[in-house]
């Protein structure tokens, strides 16, 4: 079953110096349970594609759907509901809220989904233990190493049992051995929980983890390899 489908998806940024066509006519479909990697030179539109697929920015033209549901023209609030229910995010800069402790950061998506506090706590503890941070639950992000912060972000992405996790250079700020650790973890959740992963990366090593490999050039797909 296809989890993500796009038709001629394009995004143009309107800038005072002119229009930038970040992605152009992208048509693709991603099967549920895939590990998709997106590579390409800087400025080729990788982040733009990822954000569009995740419903964070609106395409200029074309369409995209999630689990057969057309999302191109739905209201902002529906997109937000889609994100809080189905999507987890892992960003290069971790995107943690600095004044919340690890566990509070991890609990946030559950609180948005109106899970009661006791349940939020127990699930968050379990997920934090999964990423090896059971001893750091009440630490603030700044009291953690970069690798630990990224694991908090992963825990937050996992907490609402999403069907897809979008990761934009999740290992970009980490040293090589930490990167491998994080990538292995992503691979394991992809395998064990059948969570679809869409990951933008610069690193050829990271790209090897994918079973669907998309290469972008100038906002267009220059190659797409499906190993499934």
């Amino acid at each position: 079953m296809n989890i993500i489908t796009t038709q001629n998806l394009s995004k143009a940024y309107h800038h005072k110096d002119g229009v930038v066509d970040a992605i152009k006519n992208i048509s693709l479909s991603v099967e549920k349970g895939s590990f998709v990697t997106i590579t390409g030179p800087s400025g080729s539109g990788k982040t733009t594609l990822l954000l569009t697929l995740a419903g964070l920015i609106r395409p200029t033209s074309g369409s995209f759907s999630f689990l057969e549901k057309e999302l191109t023209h739905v209201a902002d609030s529906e997109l937000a509901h889609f994100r809080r229910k189905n999507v987890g995010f892992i960003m290069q800069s971790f995107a943690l809220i600095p004044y919340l402790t690890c566990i509070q950061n991890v609990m946030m998506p559950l609180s948005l989904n109106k899970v009661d506090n006791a349940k939020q706590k127990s699930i968050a503890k379990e997920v934090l233990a999964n990423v090896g941070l059971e001893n750091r639950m009440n630490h603030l992000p700044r009291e953690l190493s970069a690798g630990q912060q990224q694991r908090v972000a992963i825990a937050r992405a996992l907490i609402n049992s999403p069907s897809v996790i979008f990761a934009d250079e999740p290992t970009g700020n980490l040293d090589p051995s930490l990167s491998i650790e994080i990538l292995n973890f992503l691979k394991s959740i992809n395998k064990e929980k059948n969570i679809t992963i869409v990951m933008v990366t610069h690193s050829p090593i990271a790209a090897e983890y994918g079973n669907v490999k998309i290469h972008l050039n100038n906002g267009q797909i220059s190659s797409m390899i499906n190993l499934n």
Partner: protein
Amino acid sequence: MNLLKLVWIELWNKKSQLISSLMAIVIGIGVIVGIRTINVYSEKAVAIKLDNLGANILVLPQAASIDDYYTSDIDAPTIPMEYVERILTSDIKGVDNMSPKLTRRITLDNKKYVLTGIQPKDEIASKPLWQTTGFGKELEASCAPSSDENTSHGYEDEKLKRKAVDTLDYSECLLGFQVAKALNLKEKEILKIQDKEFIVAKLLDETGTVDDDRIFVNLRAAQDIFGIPDQISAIEIMGCCNAISDGLLGRLRNILPDTRITTINQIVSTQIETNKMMNKTSVIFLIIILFVGSISIGNYMWANVNERRKEIGILRMIGTLKSEIYKILLLKAIILGLIGGILGYLLGTISAYYMGPVFAQIQVSAIPIFILWAVLISIGISILGSLLPAYFAAKIEPFSNMQEE
């Protein structure tokens, strides 16, 4: 976690910013609460004064000042008792009631008190002259409604109404609340003034006015104590309202040329003026604080939203609705308003407590209902100031790596 907790943690995280943003609101609400508190007590004091007088016209010695009426020094001027008879025997209509008084300061145990000689009701009634003139009866009937209005003076607090003294023997006295406390006297005990002994007939309730420091004795006893028989320091007259406007004052002046005749409204007019001014000031302050407070909160919110663009973006990224961002900001505004209102109330009440006696010569205590107003106004101001920042906060796009550059 929930939105409220998120807001709370965030506010707690930046305490110093919070305090500085609240400064304007706290001071503003404080000033309003302070003025209003003093004002309420000052208005009460006026009401008490008016009701304590139980009269609306005062006949004073020509040379006396208004203050002498409340507390006179030993050499304060007096008028002869005969003036009372002069009024009674005249054909002046519209005098409902009359009570001659002699008021002087005295010293007991090295402390100063005010001694007031009064004529109790039974003595008035027993005076044949007053009965033959039909004093009271007929006039009262004709003037009853308007004189009623006069005695209440628009203040409806029953407790404040002065109770008429029905009987007070030559050897009896009534003690004001503070006097009884200071002299440690109870009912039926003996108070010695110079060489005279007085039985304490009654302890008066606390009124918050100079009456608390007053000792009441029979007028004749007071005249004997001060050695000025047949002299009084004032005649309080209950005049019929219509008669006053018909020139009662002028007619009284005609028969009592060497006196000063004034109405109660003139006496308390300065305090009434002060009250009016305080009312106006608090309205002006309310308007100022509405502007300054909401601008100051708005400014804080604006800076706060800008500083937290990234966090708001993160919240949006993980699926927080625009309406929830709005809610977060408004919750924050409400919390700020709540804190500002409570602190402002405390500040205002405490300052009123200390300033009341200094500036308005009245004792002030907290008015609990004001906390409700303080909080409501403060929250209103805070929400007003936060509307625009909240609107822009909700417009912040979901976080993406690109925003960081």
